[in-house]
C-alpha cells in the first residue's frame, strides 16, 4: 500500500513524502521529535512522530506517554491494523517522553480542516452508569438551570471487595523510559491489589523492580540510568505500605542489570512486578 502525498505546512518547505506503509505487526523503535497537530477549535491536539518517511500516530497512550514539544519521544510498538489516526499510522505500544529538553522539537501543525478531532467529555467517558446519569442530569438541567451546579460526574461505583477463595495475584506495572511514574490505569489496579492483599491477609507480597535497554531500529541502544530498578521497586513498596499492606510481609528486590533489548516490544521490560501470595 502506498501512502498518499502530504504537505507539512510548518516545516518552512513543503515536504513531499511517500513510503511503503509498514505491514501490520511490524516492530518499530525510534527516537524522534513529536509533532503536534491542531484538530479543530473544539478539540484537543493530537501528536504523531515521523520515522523513515512514515508518520506514526501517538494517540491515546497511557497518561504518562502524551508527547511534549521541547522533548523527544521514544516510540516503541507495532504497527496496528486498521484506520489511521491523527493522519498517521496507528501503533500499539508506548511513547516515552525523554526528560532532557530538545528545543528543536517545536512543530505544531495548524488545523487543516481535514484531520478533525473528536471532543471527549462527560458523555463518552466513565462507566455506562456514569454516562447515563450525566445524560439524565443534562436533560433535567436544560429545563432547570439550577441543576447545572449539581455534580455531573457521578462517583465511580465501588470495586466489590475480594471474596474467597483467595488465590495468588500478580501485577506488572509498566513505565516510561527512565521514569518511575506509572500510568493511571496501572495505579488503579495497584490500589485494588493492595486491598486484596489486606483482605486476603497476604503471607508474602513480593515487589521486584527492573530497568531495561531499548534497541532502536537504527541499531543503537538506549539504556535506562542505573538505579531505576531500585527506585521503581521502592516507590511501589512504599505505596503499598501506605495503603495498609503489611510491610513486614513485603519483600522488595530489584535487578539493576538492564534487561537487554531486541527492538521487539522492549517497553515491556521497564517494569515493576508485584505478587501477592495469600
Amino acid at each position, binding site marked *: 500500500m502506498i501512502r498518499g502525498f502530504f504537505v507539512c505546512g510548518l516545516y518552512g518547505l513543503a515536504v513531499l513524502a511517500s513510503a511503503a506503509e509498514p505491514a501490520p505487526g511490524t516492530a518499530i523503535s525510534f527516537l524522534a521529535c513529536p509533532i503536534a497537530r491542531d484538530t479543530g477549535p473544539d478539540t484537543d491536539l493530537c501528536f504523531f512522530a515521523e520515522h523513515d518517511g512514515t508518520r506514526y500516530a501517538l494517540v491515546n497512550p497511557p497518561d*504518562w506517554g502524551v508527547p511534549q514539544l*521541547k522533548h523527544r519521544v521514544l516510540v516503541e510498538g507495532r504497527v496496528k491494523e486498521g484506520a489511521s489516526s491523527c493522519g498517521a499510522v496507528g501503533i500499539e505500544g508506548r511513547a516515552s517522553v525523554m526528560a532532557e529538553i530538545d528545543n528543536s522539537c517545536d512543530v505544531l501543525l495548524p488545523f487543516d480542516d481535514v484531520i478533525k478531532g473528536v471532543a471527549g467529555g*462527560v458523555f463518552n467517558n466513565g462507566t455506562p452508569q456514569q454516562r447515563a446519569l450525566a445524560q439524565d442530569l443534562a436533560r433535567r438541567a436544560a429545563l432547570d438551570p*439550577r441543576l*447545572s*451546579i449539581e*455534580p455531573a460526574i457521578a462517583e465511580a461505583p465501588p470495586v466489590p471487595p475480594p471474596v474467597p477463595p483467595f488465590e495468588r495475584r500478580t501485577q506488572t506495572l509498566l513505565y516510561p523510559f527512565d521514569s518511575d511514574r506509572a500510568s493511571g490505569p496501572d*495505579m*488503579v489496579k495497584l490500589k485494588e491489589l493492595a486491598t486484596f492483599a489486606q483482605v486476603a491477609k497476604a503471607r508474602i507480597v513480593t515487589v521486584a523492580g527492573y530497568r531495561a535497554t531499548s534497541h532502536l531500529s537504527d541499531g543503537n541502544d538506549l539504556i535506562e540510568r542505573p538505579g531505576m530498578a531500585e527506585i521503581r521497586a521502592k516507590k511501589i513498596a512504599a505505596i503499598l505500605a501506605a495503603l495498609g499492606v503489611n510491610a513486614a510481609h513485603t519483600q522488595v528486590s530489584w535487578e539493576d542489570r538492564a534487561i537487554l533489548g531486541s527492538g521487539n516490544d522492549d517497553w515491556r521490560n521497564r517494569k515493576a512486578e508485584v505478587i501477592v501470595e495469600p
Partner: protein
Amino acid sequence: MKAVTIDDNSASAVANWYSMKSRLKSLRGGALLAAAALTGIGAAGLGFAAAEYDATEAWWKPGDARLMPASADYADALGRVRVLNAAGSLQTKDHAFFTALGSNGRACVTCHQPSNGMGLSVDTVRKRWQDTAGKDPLFAAIDGSNCPNLPQQERTSHSLLLDRGLFRVFLPWPPRAGDGSAVEPEFTIEVVRDPTGCNTDPIYGLNSKSPTISVFRRPRPVANLKYLLELPHGVPPSDFLFYNDKSLLPRNPETGGFASLQLMSDGRDLTPRIQARDAASNHLQAHAALNPKQLSQIESFEIQVYSAQSFDKVGRELTGADSPPGLGPEALEKGAPARLGNNPINRIFGSFAMWQSAPAGSDGGDADRARREFRESVARGSDIFYVRRFIINDVGRYNDKGLGNPFKRSCGSGCHNTLLMGMDLAPGYMDLGLNNLPWASARPDLPLFKVVCNSKSAPQSYLGRIIYTHDPARALITGKCADVGASMTQQSRSLAARAPYFMNGSAANLRELVDFYDRRFNIGYSESEKVDLVNFLSVL
C-alpha cells in the same frame, strides 16, 4: 454589625459602564475607582449612605467585640461581597481567630478581613496605613515590611505590602519536611538581585546562621475551605493518588488520613490546624503554641465560612431567582466539594444561560439597560471562560504531568476545573509563568534567584536546570528541580473584594489578570472578549 444595604443609585457605575462600552475598555481594570474618586463618591467609592456604611467598621481589629452575622454583605470595589457563616452568627470577643495571639498585636482576622472576602485587598492595606500612620500591627516588621532590618516608620520599607499586598514569607534553606527532618534539595540557589535586602542580610538572609529565603506572597482567602480540603473526586487514578506523578498524597499527621495540597500556594501546610500553628508562630509572633481550644476555634470557624460576590453596582443582585445558580456564597455552602466541573453541564460555575438575553427591567432607564447589558456581557464571559480553547504550552508541572505539550483547552476545561471554585482539582501546582523568567512580568521590586539543578535530577521540563525565578515556590518545600516556580492554582471567588491577583500580586486588577493570560498563551482575545471575561470574573 448590621448587614449592609446599598442605595439605589449606583449612577456613577452605570455611567462608567457606558463609558467602558464606548471605549471597549474594562473599567474593572481600575478606572472605576478613579472615576468614583473624581465624582466625589466616598472612600470605598460605593455610593453608600453614611448611616448605612461606616467605613471605620470595615476594618476588623483584633480584640474587637462584634457580632459577626450569619450573613453579611460588605462593600468592595465593584459592589458587595457576602460572607456567610454556615454555623450561624458568632461573637468575636475572645474568639481565637479574632484575638491577638502573639507579640505583634495581630490576629488571624488582620490578614483575612470579612470585607475583603476573608482575604486582604491592597486598597484595604493602603487605607490602614493612612488611618494609622503605619502603626497598625498589619505592618509588623517581621513580614509586613520588606525586611525587619529596615526603618519601620518609612513607607518604602513596606512598599511590597502597600504596592502589591505582599507579605514576606521566610522559609528555611535547605527545606525541612513537616516533621522537621532535612530535605536534600536537587538544586543550589543564589541571590541575583535583592531589592529588599533581606536575602543578603546577615541576620535574615541566605547566608545567616539560620539560612532563610524570603519570598513575597499574597494571603489567600480563608473561605470556602471545604472545597480545598476535600480529596479530589473523579481525578484518576484515585482520590488519594496524586495525579502529577502517581505518588500518594501526603498524610494529615493528626488524623492519619490523606490530605489535599490545596490550602497553601506552596502546599506546605496541609490543614487549617497546621496552618494556624505556622501562622501564629511566624505571622503573629506567638511565643507559645496555640492551645487545643484556640486551634479548634480557628478550625471550626474557617471550615464553615463562605464568601462570594453578592451584588454588582451595574449588574445589581447576583443571587436570587433570576441569577445564575453558582453565584453567591449560598451556592458554595450547599455545593458538592472537590468535583470536576469541566463538562458541558457544570461549566465550572454553572449555567449563565438566564443572562444570555437578560429580560428588561421595569423602568427601562439607563440603569436598567446597563444591568441587562452587563449581565449579557457576564454570560458571554462565562462562555469564553468555559468554551474558548487556546494553546497551553510549556507550563511546568502541568503540560508534563501527562496532558501533553501543548494542550489545548479553555480556562475552565484546563487549569480552573473545580466545580464552583475554579482551581485545579488535580490538585495542581504548576509554573504558570508567574515566578520564573522568561514569562514572569517585569518585577524589579522582587528578589531574583538563580537556581542551578544538579545533573542527576529531572530538569524543570521547559526551563532546564538553570532557572531564574522570583520565587521557587513549591520547590522551597520539596527541593525538587521540576517544582521550581510552581504554585497551586487558587479559588476564583470573591475576586472583586481582594485585588491584586496572583501569588505575587502582579495583576493589579482583573483586566491585568486577563491580559497576563492573553500574553502568556498568545490567546488573542479581542477587546470585547476581555471586557466580557473581566465582567464574568468580577461577579464570582
